């Protein structure tokens, strides 16, 4: 990670009808940094990512990538989106394309790269995530974990400057979560700038350079992972972390109550 | 003369005659639909049988009725049955017969579709709750089937009304024929009559079918 600011969001406000989902978010992400966004469901984490990628129009505020403003819609947006990779919870591979075609479609059609070069890179990437032998399969023939790894490769092949991950393991069976998280850890080690929304606390702790805790559409707490998980500063963050630990109620306690 | 055509509609009992003509087709459709519903339910249940002979019979019946234009069916019954079996069927009876046969096939297929669309686990969970077979059908399966069926059955009625317009081609005096008679009778006084009369017939059909389509669409949306 170096000190250059790669993504800067300031004063982001997003409303759905009368509900304010994001209420003035200021965020800076440095080159090579891994930022993990945590928070209870409905706190606006996913909306934040969608705003950063222009899938939702912000009501006010500004977003800049490498100092260049991201403005709403049009050809400019399409160009900026090539620099921002995004991976969704539901994979959203194109069901009518093979895995290889899924990955090379955008490089060929959007970036007008030669097919051979795109395919070569796609195959290399597939190798790295252990999916090379699935290159001619269709999405429905893959397991959830395999689909999600393919979706990550699809975003990577566009050479994005920053990657957004929106709860990418939330729809997976527990035994498949690991294979996806491993791929993400590897990307982080290679110095890719990443913003990750997740519910996997241990993973967040392991991968994050910085944790941002969101609640009610605002950033409540922002700190290094060790500090956040061992000594959260706000009561709400404490409460949130508390929901992830279970303690067995003893029968003795119950009998006292009765 | 151009702009006088429309006044023909209000001359004498012309409008009432057109409505009378429309009623003939609507009447045929309604009778055919009313007959098709019970017969179609029986046919639909018959189609869910596993017996190979039952499957073959229902398949052949459904496919033949479906693949033949309704006008061909009308010709077969009106011209063919009369000769082959020596029964003299009036055009009206032939029409009722054909549209009931057609309606039964379509309705049967809808019933079958609705029945098989109820997922297996609906039966399972009813059983798991301890409901008897009869209770399962009365409280779980039939209400769900009806919900799927009713909008489609209503939609079948509009198809029936539109299709019964064909009966004019086997000589039944309905709205198009009445229109033709009015046009012919006023050929010299109202040369543009055809435009107005057929325009009105077009909208008569539209206003007969449209409300029914709307009801069907609304129900389908609400019950989905």
């Amino acid at each position, binding site marked *: 990670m170096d000190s250059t600011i790669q993504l800067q969001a300031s004063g982001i406000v997003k409303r759905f009808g009368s509900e304010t989902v994001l209420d003035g978010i200021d965020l800076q992400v440095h080159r090579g940094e891994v930022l993990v966004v945590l928070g209870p469901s409905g706190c606006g984490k996913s909306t934040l990512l969608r705003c950063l990628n222009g899938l939702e129009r912000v009501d006010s505020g500004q977003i800049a990538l490498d100092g260049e403003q991201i403005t709403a819609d049009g050809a400019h947006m399409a160009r900026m989106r090539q620099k921002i990779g995004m991976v969704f919870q539901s994979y959203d591979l194109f069901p009518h394309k093979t895995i290889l075609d899924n990955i090379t479609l955008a490089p060929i059609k959007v*970036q007008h790269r030669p097919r051979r070069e795109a395919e070569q890179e796609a195959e290399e990437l597939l190798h790295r995530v252990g999916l090379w032998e699935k290159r001619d399969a269709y999405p429905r023939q893959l397991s959830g974990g395999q689909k999600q790894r393919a979706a990550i490769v699809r975003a990577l092949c566009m050479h994005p400057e920053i990657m957004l991950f929106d709860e990418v393991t939330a729809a997976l069976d527990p035994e498949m979560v690991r294979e996806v998280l491993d791929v993400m850890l590897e990307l982080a080690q290679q110095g890719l700038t990443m913003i990750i929304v997740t519910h996997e606390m241990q993973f967040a702790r392991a991968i994050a350079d910085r944790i941002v805790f969101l609640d009610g559409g605002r950033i409540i707490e922002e700190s290094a992972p060790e500090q956040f998980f061992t000594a959260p500063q706000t009561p709400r963050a404490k409460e949130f972390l508390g929901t992830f630990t279970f303690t067995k109620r003893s029968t003795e306690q119950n009998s006292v109550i009765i | 003369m151009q702009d006088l055509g429309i006044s023909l509609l209000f001359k004498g009992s012309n409008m009432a005659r057109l409505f009378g003509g429309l009623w003939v087709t609507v009447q045929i459709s309604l009778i055919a639909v009313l007959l098709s519903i019970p017969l179609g339910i029986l046919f639909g249940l018959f189609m869910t049988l596993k017996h190979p002979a039952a499957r073959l019979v229902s398949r052949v019946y459904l496919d033949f009725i479906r693949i033949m*234009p309704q006008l061909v069916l009308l010709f077969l019954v009106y011209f063919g049955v009369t000769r082959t079996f020596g029964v003299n069927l009036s055009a009206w009876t032939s029409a009722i017969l054909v549209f009931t046969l057609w309606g039964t096939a379509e309705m049967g297929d809808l019933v079958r579709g609705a029945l098989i669309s109820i997922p297996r686990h609906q039966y399972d969970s009813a059983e798991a709750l301890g409901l008897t077979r009869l209770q399962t059908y009365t409280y779980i399966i039939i209400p769900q089937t009806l919900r799927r069926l009713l909008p489609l059955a209503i939609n079948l009625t509009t198809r029936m009304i539109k299709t019964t317009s064909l009966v004019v081609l086997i000589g039944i005096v309905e709205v*198009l024929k009445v229109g033709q008679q009015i*046009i012919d009778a006023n050929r010299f006084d109202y040369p543009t009559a055809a435009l107005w009369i057929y325009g009105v017939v077009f909208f008569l059909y539209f206003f007969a079918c449209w409300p029914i389509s709307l009801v069907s669409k609304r129900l389908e949306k609400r019950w989905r």
Partner: protein
Amino acid sequence: MDFAFISQYAPLYVQAAALTARIAFWGIVFSLLLGAACSFVQYYRIPVLRRVAAVYIELSRNTPLLVQLFFLYFGLPKLGIRISAEGCAVLGLTFLGGSYMAEALRSGLESVEKNQIESAQSLGFGRLQALRHVILPQAVATSVPALCANVIFLIKETSVVSAIALADLMYVAKDLIGLYYKTDEALLMLVVAYLVLLLPISLLATFLERRLRYAGFGN
């Protein structure tokens, strides 16, 4: 059954079937174009045009082809618009079929999940590129069964064009019945002719539908 009669008049049916096929072919082609236009206008919610499309679809779906043809063939000339009988048949079939094709294509377009579009957007696809590479291939695959059903429906509907003096299959059959009282033979050839026209298409439709339903992409 008079087989000599059948072999004598079979060529008439062949000719008539060719007319039926020609009308159906052009009617279906233009229906598809009209239907595609309407479905796009509705899918992308283009103002004004989508209302026009909606009104047209309701008018077309709630009136019989026979009445549409009478209006086109007997009514329009009074406005000075004269179209040949065959032209009227194709036009009528297009007016009728356009709405059916539009509904089939629109439900296909709407079946493509919003996620698919977003995921294309996030890869930098523009609107048209996303339509061409991501939305359309999926939408058309979903629409195929309904489109096939419409094709069969429209071929069957051509049977009413005899009412505007076109010598199609129905017309020939009625002629033979009226002229020679060879009812059985005339009707038999009529049924056979329609089976020959429709059975292959119906089988093809069943085949396509089964393939798409059970296999989908990638099996």
